[in-house]
């Protein structure tokens, strides 16, 4: 594994993890978002290690505002992330893409896979619901509509993530795109979705299964 870098369209210098080298094909891995991103980071990286063992090189860029990025998350929105994903693919020389969960919403126009894709609106709904539950415990009644309305004045902090008004509005409308990506279902991977876990946990068998599916498609 090597650390490399790329420059986002907004000018920020971002990191990327590079696994494997050689070969004519290289996979761009777009990680899951927000809370799911934390829960799936381990299995995502182990999938890339497993791909390297199978002879497939892959790249995991930080999106602006995520992970080690110094760019402010609340200045990002869906179009800026889409542009960032396209630019990361170009600069990192990727020919294929693996979009994990909600990252399917910003996948560049490359062949590849979507692991249990999640519409942006569903990702937002889960975070709004978490906020409503937390507020209710604190004695405040809130609704999804009320939170979305409040967001227009300056964004929202949801599940600890400061999202800008544009991001919240974009997510609220985001259906799953009709992409050319092949959906990988959890039934194909085996075992429960690790994004569901209350505590982040790893399952090596899931990483190996996902890597085998991708390698079989890429190296066929």
């Amino acid at each position, binding site marked *: 594994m090597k650390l490399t870098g790329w420059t986002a369209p907004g000018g920020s210098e971002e990191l990327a993890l590079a696994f494997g080298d050689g070969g004519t094909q290289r996979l761009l891995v777009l990680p899951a978002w927000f809370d799911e991103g934390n829960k799936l980071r381990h299995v995502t990286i182990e999938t890339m290690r497993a791909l390297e063992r199978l002879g497939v090189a892959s790249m995991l860029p930080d999106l602006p505002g995520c992970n080690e990025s110094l760019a402010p998350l609340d200045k990002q929105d869906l179009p800026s992330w889409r542009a960032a994903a396209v630019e990361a693919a170009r600069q990192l020389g990727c020919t294929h893409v693996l979009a994990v969960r909600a990252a399917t919403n910003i996948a560049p126009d490359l062949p590849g896979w979507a692991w249990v894709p999640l519409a942006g609106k569903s990702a937002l709904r*889960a975070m709004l619901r978490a906020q*409503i539950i937390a507020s*209710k415990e604190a004695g405040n009644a809130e609704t999804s509509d009320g939170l979305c309305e409040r967001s227009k004045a300056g964004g929202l902090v949801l599940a600890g993530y400061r999202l800008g008004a544009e991001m919240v509005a974009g997510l609220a409308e985001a259906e799953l795109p009709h992409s050319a990506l092949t959906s990988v279902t959890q039934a194909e991977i085996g075992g429960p979705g690790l994004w569901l876990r209350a505590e982040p946990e790893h399952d090596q068998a899931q990483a190996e299964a996902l890597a085998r599916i991708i390698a079989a498609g890429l190296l066929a």
Partner: protein
Amino acid sequence: MTDTVPAMHSDQFEAELILRGVLADVLGLSPERVAAFDADTGLFGHLPELDSMAVAGLLTEIEDRLDVLIEDDEVDGDMLETFGALLAFVLAKRADG
């Protein structure tokens, strides 16, 4: 007449099994551990790992697997506090649907 009663019971039984399955996946517990949950087993507020984000995921998964829609204003601490309360809520939603 007699054949509708067992059908309803089997639907309740199925819903309970599915709910236990969702809890096993969220809590990372074995099916045996979750099979031992009874009506008084504490959930939200009793299990530190079951935070608001995990509960939100739990509810979304319940919606998907049990084909129900849970409204914002139906979600409260009481309905999430014990396995019995959550099961009663889910069965009532299924009966409505």
